[in-house]
């Protein structure tokens, strides 16, 4: 694979990958860029922890506060959910009015006896997909 680097102060910074297929190298570059691109601070008691986009499993609202769940625990975020939705971009899906989930950490979808559509994450967390968001989730998952 060829590497070309252009240094231009007047241009917006961006990375484009041209590959024949999605392989390990592409995924590693993607992970690196994603981890680099968004840096959030997570607050827990007196601790402030830098969180990476890829390390966040779910962002959710509870008692009017916004939290992010990661492999190391849950941290409070000092941003509103709509701001995070914009910041986190396409990797995250808004599944209901108070939660975003990282597509990369979705283990499976399931349905409850009550007819709710549920999403299970690789860390074992489960949340529901609201009826309003079902169509959007399906579209984002590539189902028309």
């Amino acid at each position: 694979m060829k590497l070309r680097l252009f240094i231009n102060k007047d241009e917006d910074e961006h990375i484009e990958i041209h590959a024949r297929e999605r392989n390990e190298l592409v995924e590693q570059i993607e992970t690196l860029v994603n981890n680099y691109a968004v840096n959030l601070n997570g607050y827990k008691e007196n601790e402030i922890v830098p969180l990476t986009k890829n390390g966040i499993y779910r962002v959710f609202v509870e008692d009017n506060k916004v939290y992010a769940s990661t492999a190391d625990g849950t941290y409070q975020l000092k941003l509103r959910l709509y701001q995070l939705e914009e910041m986190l971009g396409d990797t995250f899906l808004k599944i209901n009015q108070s939660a975003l989930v990282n597509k990369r950490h979705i283990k499976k979808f399931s349905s409850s006896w009550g007819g709710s559509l549920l999403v299970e994450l690789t860390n074992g967390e489960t949340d529901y997909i609201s009826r309003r968001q079902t169509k959007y989730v399906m579209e984002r998952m590539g189902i028309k």
Partner: protein
Amino acid sequence: MKQQMNVYVKQFLTFGACFAGLGPIIGGYLLWMTLSPANLTIRGGQVFLAIVSTYIIAFVHGGTIVFHRIEHWSPFKAAALQLLCLYAVYMGAYLVNRWMPLDWKAVLITTVLFVLAYAVIWIVIYTITKHVTKKLNKKLDE
């Protein structure tokens, strides 16, 4: 959550009030269709009761639409509570107005019809959700 519920209560009242406007019209229509001047033996009190009953039925019908907007309620819960409210208000109005004979068989038939309607709704919701889940998991595996 409490704040959110207050919004739903307001919506319930608003929808209820909007729909309730139709109640007296429906009541009037029913009386018009069932009574002819020759057998107009209905008393004023009965007319008043019928209008109030149809007002309440329409109010509850409109208001309970909100149940399906409460995000954290499952479709099962929303449909069950809506049907329960409708069952209570219809049964109450039917019996109070004597639109239905005060007989256990009539009550039983109406109850069974409500339960059957609910079962059909539940089966449809569950089947659709299962289908969507299957599609999403298939995409996830790709």
